[in-house]
């Protein structure tokens, strides 16, 4: 991948991550500092299975990325950072 595309991807991931973080902190009453971005939000107790539904709805509204059942894996949704990378990759694929 050429370097400028690399940089573009990285900034897109950053953008998605900040939007997700803002959504999670506002919707689930939790401070940004209390969220471990590399651990499962469910395991941390930040969200339950309904929270997961809300996050996928937010991702669809905000980024037009549809999350299918088979997308919900540890690799794609196992942490906030993983979600951000998953969404950004989908956006690039459909760009």
């Amino acid at each position, binding site marked *: 991948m050429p370097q400028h595309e690399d940089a573009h991807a990285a900034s897109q991931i950053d953008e998605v991550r900040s939007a997700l973080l803002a959504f999670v902190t506002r*919707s689930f009453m939790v401070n940004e500092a209390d969220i471990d971005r590399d651990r499962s939000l*469910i*395991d941390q107790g930040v969200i*339950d299975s309904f929270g*997961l*539904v809300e996050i996928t709805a937010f991702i669809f509204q905000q980024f037009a990325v549809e999350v299918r059942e088979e997308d*919900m894996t540890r690799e794609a949704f196992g942490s906030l950072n993983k979600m951000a990378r998953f969404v950004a990759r989908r956006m690039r694929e459909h760009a």
Partner: protein
Amino acid sequence: MSSARCTRCVLSSSFPGLTFDGEGVCSFCRGELMLTSEESAVEHARRQVEQLFAVRTRPYDAVLCNSGGKDSSYTLKLAVEKYGLRVLSFTLDNGFISPKAFENIRCVVDALGVDHLTVRPSMQILRRIFKAAALLPIYRDKTLTRISAGCNACISIVNTTGLRLALEKSAPFILAGFTLGQIPANAIVYRNNFRFLAESREESLGRLRAAVGREVDEYYGIGDSLLDRAGPSPHNVNLLCLERVTDEEIVQAVQVLGWQRPKDVDGCSSNCQLNTFNNHVHQRRFGYSPYELELSHLIRKGLMSREEALEKIADQPLEQLAAIASRLELSPPERVALWIPPGRPPA
């Protein structure tokens, strides 16, 4: 322990992460954000239901998690009478379901002519699970802002049982009696990847396994062989959210089926006597009721008055604690650790 509450909702000052303004209004009341327009989410769910229910399955279209409360009973009525679904109703008997709730379940399933299963796990294991949930840090504090540890342990078994039954019977839908306010509007119809959810809960299940034993896997897990031969996950559908109906109308409609309001449970539960114990432990440990978040949400949405919510929180038959502690076989030191007065020895 401070008993100060938000002047608009019922959140306690001890609720984690909460701040108050000069008028005593909590940060959640000041800045709550609406995720989706509720109306459009409900409309979307209505179209989904229409589409999904067009295909019928044998022997069952749906499995219903039936607590015996008015909302589950009304959901069953809707499923059968309005949508014409073939439903398998089931109740998890955790040993503390009120006798009145069982009577109600029998009346309603008989009146509607549906098959019903009561699933009663080993009481020896359930007791160990409930004790572990009360005494040990099985779940994260953040999880416990929404629900007590004991209820969380129990609801997880209900959900797993519902999913297992749906997979075994190839039923494409799992119905529950949640109302808007209890769940987000975009969770009226949804589907979760069970493997992912199970993986995400492996940590707390590991702690429970360490405390109780490997038997917990029977109740909190779906065997790989069943998952492997199962098709796509069933849809979870909360039909009650699609109705514009008041609590009073729901009660009237289910009373026609023989349902009667139980008098032997606390203000926050329609069927379970263990709820009182779970609430007590949570209240003493954290300084707020596990129902505050849900009730406050209902107040903000104009679905409940603050007075009514306060009444529900206060309606705790604490005199039952000693009897519940005996049924859980709590030792004297365990009672002390859970702030339970020593009861009379069982007769």
